[in-house]
Structure formats: structure tokens, C-alpha cells
């Protein structure tokens, strides 16, 4: 007995997973282009398993940023996953191993599909099915992209460097549809342009992040 709500959840999960997985090809190809080898690329998709942070690693590594700023940027971009986890805690329910696996699969998409459902059972199915399907698809496509990327040669000929820029814009876009986040994005972008030539590699991204947080706290104080 599958309710219409469950059927709708399954189709949403698989649709989202299909789209995200395809984009794993570009991650794999770009990672190899940025200088990582096949297994370094694959380990990111297997263990880090969070698109934004993974792209930050390869993007910053390509600019010659030191390891510590790469780790900091990837870690800060992953903070939101921790908050998703809090939200998903009651959906996942008790059990050590179950929660461990759920933690690994707690990403933008699995959380979004889960919270889009109203029935508890549909929420559970949405979370697990989306997480599992993306984990499998994303890793398979990462491998395909890494192999393909190796065969492509100079990534610039194929516009892969521009694809990475567009990928970040695509991740940013849905988050700047209201005024305050759009202002934060504009300030962060401006700070990056200004600090890139002078600050040590990897630092501009972190300065921009700090400025964004300060802006948000100031805005909060003004409203209080």
C-alpha cells in the first residue's frame, strides 16, 4: 500500500538525485583538471560527500591556497550540514548505526526533499532515498568525470574553468533571492576582488566569510 504522498516523494527523490548525479561528472573532471589524481577525487566524493565543500577544495587547491585555508573554507561551507542534521534528527530516529549513516548522507538535497513532505513516513522515505540515490549516483559520476577529465587534456580548451565558476553561481543562486543575502553576496564578492591581489592565497575567501557574518550580526542588532 503506497499512498500518493509516498509515490510523489519517491519521484521527487529520484528526480533530484538524477540531476545532482549528472553534475558529479563536472566535479570529477574539474577535480582532475585542478591537479588531483583519480583516488584523491574519489575520496572527496566518498567521504566528504558535500558538493559545495568539494568544489571549494578543488577551486582553492588550484589557486595554490595552503592546506589550512582549504580545510577551513571546506569546513565552514559544511556548517550548514550540521544544522540540517539537527533538523533531521527526529526524522531519522534512534539507533547508533542508523544515525551514523544518516549523518553521512545529510546534505542540501536529502534535507530539502525530507522537509518538503508532510507525512512522517514520506519524510523518512524522502531523506533516505534521496541520500542513498545521490550517494551512489554522485560517486559513480565522479569516477566517470575523473576518467573523462584525464583524457581531455587542457581543461581551459573545454571551458571547464568557466564551468566551475558557473557551478558556484548555481549553488549560490537559490540562496540570494531576497535582499539581505543578496547584499551579503555582493559585499563578499567585492571584498574578494579587493583582497585577492594582496592577501595570501586562500585568505580572501575567509575574509569574505567573516565580513558576511559581521554584516548579519550588525543587521540583527539594528532590528532588535
Amino acid at each position: 500500500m503506497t499512498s500518493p504522498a509516498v509515490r510523489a516523494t519517491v519521484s521527487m527523490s529520484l528526480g533530484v538525485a538524477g540531476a545532482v548525479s549528472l553534475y558529479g561528472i563536472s566535479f570529477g573532471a574539474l577535480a582532475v583538471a585542478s591537479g588531483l589524481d583519480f583516488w584523491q577525487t574519489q575520496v572527496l566524493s566518498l567521504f566528504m560527500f558535500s558538493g559545495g565543500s568539494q568544489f571549494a577544495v578543488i577551486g582553492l587547491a588550484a589557486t595554490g591556497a595552503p592546506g589550512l585555508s582549504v580545510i577551513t573554507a571546506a569546513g565552514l561551507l559544511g556548517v550548514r550540514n550540521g544544522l540540517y542534521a539537527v533538523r533531521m534528527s527526529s526524522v531519522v530516529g534512534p539507533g547508533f548505526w542508523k544515525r551514523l549513516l544518516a549523518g553521512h548522507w545529510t546534505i542540501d538535497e536529502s534535507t530539502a526533499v525530507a522537509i518538503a513532505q508532510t507525512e512522517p513516513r514520506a519524510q523518512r522515505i524522502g531523506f533516505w532515498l534521496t541520500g542513498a540515490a545521490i550517494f551512489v549516483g554522485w560517486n559513480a559520476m565522479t569516477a566517470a568525470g575523473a576518467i573523462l577529465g584525464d583524457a581531455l587534456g587542457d581543461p581551459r580548451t573545454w571551458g571547464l574553468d568557466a564551468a566551475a565558476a558557473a557551478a558556484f553561481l548555481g549553488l549560490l543562486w537559490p540562496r540570494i533571492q531576497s535582499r539581505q543575502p543578496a547584499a551579503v553576496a555582493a559585499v563578499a564578492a567585492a571584498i574578494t576582488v579587493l583582497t585577492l591581489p594582496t592577501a595570501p592565497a586562500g585568505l580572501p575567501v575567509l575574509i569574505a566569510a567573516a565580513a558576511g557574518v559581521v554584516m548579519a550580526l550588525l543587521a540583527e542588532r539594528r532590528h532588535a
Partner: protein
Amino acid sequence: MTPWTTILIASAVVLGTKLLGYLVPASVAAHPRIQRISDVLTVALLASLVVTQTAAIGSAIVVDARLAALAVGAVLLRFRAPFIVVVLAAAAAAAALRAMGWAA
């Protein structure tokens, strides 16, 4: 730090953050301020990475085919094109501009 060290530590940090979320009492992390800071952090980092990826070569600001490709991506996003279409179109735009010799 070797690339492997960076990759393993960064992966552990990101995975650890997710797991931590299942240990924190809901009341702490659901605090509106924590929520807002997390949102803003994500937006600021992504915006900064867009710039880095579009206009930086090492620590120099360089305007080349990537900027035109990003504009193509922005237009497609504006018209709600799927993610993969945006990424592929940006790549194609940059590749075409370079093949024609119109941009570096």
C-alpha cells in the same frame, strides 16, 4: 601539507560536522541566530568562490572568457534552467570564445 593530508582532514571536518548535528540538542542549534549565521556564512563563501573561480589566476585578477561564460550562466539561472544545463552552457561559451580567439 600534502594534498592527501589536506583532503583527508577536510573530509573528516565536513563529515564530523554532519555527525555532530545528530548529537547537539535541538534547542541549541535551532536558535535563530545560529541559523542566520550559517545561512550568511554559506552565501558569503559561495559568492567569494564565484569571484575566485571567475576572475583569479593565482593572486591576479584576470578578465577572460570565464566572465562571459558566467554571464551566460546567470542568464540561464534567471530563466530557471537546470543546474547541469547552466554548467554545460558556461563551459561551451568559454570554449567557443577561446576557439574563435575572441577571448583568452
